[in-house]
């Protein structure tokens, strides 16, 4: 909501207050305007937060963001073409816990504004054709079921067809329990698709955002040629609580944070959200294939060193 709307709403409210019994601003409207930073507890005006890519201007806390926002931040305007937009989960196990999976799906759509835990498509990033997948934690905790697995596999296949770089931005609690063993098999499906992609020699960059765990880290998220994490993002295989219960000891405060992962050799870099697009562009350009494989074989090996020099100029 922009400032103009906000003033209009306030004016409306004041008029209403004059006519009616004094009424508080509904909680929803209030929350839509202001958000408290999870880290520094500062109250932030949502419009400022949005223009700052959902990063707290005071402490640089990176808020978990939805797939549509992320796509808007990264893609050149109007270039994102979604694929498989209509694919939705079925209910292969007819799963019921305290509520049926079907009902939970409807609620998740309402809550998140997206229809599944990942959006996939092609786009341009500073002019570079890219296959892009973005997970959305708001939908079922970003969990991977059949749809996420299938969409990732198809995205990887599209990247193979187009011979273009692949980016997947993860944010997930793990595999989706409501689809049982079929969810587990998506780990194999997505990893297997990446095996074929690896052989094309194109670049896969995996971006880990708050939070990424379980089946998603144990498959495509940890298989990037280059792995980037967002500052403060928590990433791991098992959850902190499960580990604490298992080993019966306190874990370090920064355990499983992006910075901790960097220290332990699991990610290549931790990049601030407002520098992400630039970094991706640099990485694309560095890895861009100058010649096709066919051309390469035509270059006599003796002239390789000089041609390399020319290429590097």
């Amino acid at each position, binding site marked *: 909501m922009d400032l103009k709307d906000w003033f209009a709403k306030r004016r409306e409210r004041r008029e209403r207050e004059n006519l009616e019994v004094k009424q508080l601003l509904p909680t929803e409207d209030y929350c839509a305007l202001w958000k408290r930073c999870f880290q520094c507890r500062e109250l932030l005006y949502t419009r400022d937060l949005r223009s700052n890519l959902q990063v707290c201007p005071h402490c640089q806390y990176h808020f978990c963001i939805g797939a549509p926002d992320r796509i808007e931040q990264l893609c050149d305007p109007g270039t994102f073409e979604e694929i498989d937009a209509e694919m939705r989960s079925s209910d292969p196990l007819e799963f019921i816990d305290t509520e049926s999976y079907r009902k939970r799906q409807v609620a998740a759509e309402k809550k998140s504004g997206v229809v599944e835990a990942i959006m996939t498509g092609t786009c341009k990033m500073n002019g570079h054709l890219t296959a892009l997948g973005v997970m959305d934690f708001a939908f079922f905790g970003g969990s991977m079921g*059949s*749809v996420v697995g299938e969409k990732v596999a198809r995205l990887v296949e599209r990247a193979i067809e187009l011979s273009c770089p692949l980016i997947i931005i993860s944010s997930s609690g793990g595999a989706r329990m409501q689809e*049982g063993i079929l969810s587990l098999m998506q780990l194999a499906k997505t990893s297997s698709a990446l095996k074929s992609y690896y052989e094309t020699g194109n670049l896969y960059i995996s971006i880990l955002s708050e939070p990424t765990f379980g089946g998603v880290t144990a498959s495509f998220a940890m298989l990037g040629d280059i792995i980037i994490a967002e500052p403060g993002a928590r990433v791991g295989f*098992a959850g902190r609580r499960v580990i604490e219960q298992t080993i019966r000891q306190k874990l370090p405060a920064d355990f499983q944070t992006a910075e901790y992962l960097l220290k332990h050799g699991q990610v290549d870099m931790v990049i601030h959200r407002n520098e992400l697009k630039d970094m991706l562009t640099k990485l694309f350009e560095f890895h861009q294939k100058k010649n096709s494989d066919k051309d390469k074989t035509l270059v006599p090996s003796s002239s390789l060193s000089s041609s390399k020099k020319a290429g590097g100029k």
Partner: protein
Amino acid sequence: MAEVKRQVPLEFEKPLSVLAQQIDNLEAQLQEQPDLEPELRHLKEQYTSLRKSLYSNLRPIDRLAIARHPERPYTRDYFERWDSQWIELHGDRHGTDDSAMVGGLLDLGNDLKVIAVGTQKGRNIKEKQSCNFGMPQPEGYAKALRLFKHAEKFGLPIVTLIDTPGAYPGLAAEEHNQAQAIAINLLELSGLTVPVVAVVTGEGGSGGALAIGVANRILMLEHSVYSVISPEGCASILWRSADKVSDAAQSMKITAREILELGVIDGIITEPLGGAHKDPEATAKAAKAAIVSQLSELVKLSGSEVRHDRQHKFRSMGKWRDQ
């Protein structure tokens, strides 16, 4: 009746062991009171029919208990029965030999030499601790991968046995990148040109099981289970209650028959009545026969066909709707 008493009865088997106890008492008195004979015969008949009905009406939670039975045959028990001369290979070559993952060279006879790899649980406290209760560390998955690559290099088929609660959730395991250790195995297994047959022999616990389970053919023992998360974990997350384990086991469809119906596995290996632990010898024999039968088909395919077959298998898993 000795077998029932010797082995730890499971919760659902208690009525059976009560009956067995009565039969034993009567048998002891039989010498002095021959007129007890008809009653004894009656009890024995009751025992047989109760046993049959108990084991043919197992709930998922009962199968889970059988799959976790402390006397269930473990990976080494199979390897030793299949090839008493098998040669164990050790280590990840980076400083660790994870005992929760064992592997080596097995001659299955009829010119079928394989690399066999499996998760290993321990029988007694000391063994359990050294095998970390069957939960591999990242180093264990690296050890398995090293053996898979050995198989690929020498054109040997791979047999994997799965019996693990899951990958170990620990501090060092996270620091050493448990997630990536599993992911890299999924990726590399999918690209192998040698045939892979996986058998879930006990517990197939999530990603830690799948990390050695990306196979051309997947089989499950009749009472084994395979799930995306342990029923305990599922109950505590979705029901927020530790008492709902049975409901979680039911809802997740973790049994061999249900998973076969979902199209994830290729076959079920029948167990002796009451479970594999009642007759490990027969179980090992049945498992070997099933594996050999699958492998003898797969070895007829070319390397690229084998790889394509495996990738296609996993590519087609999943259900969704387009609308």
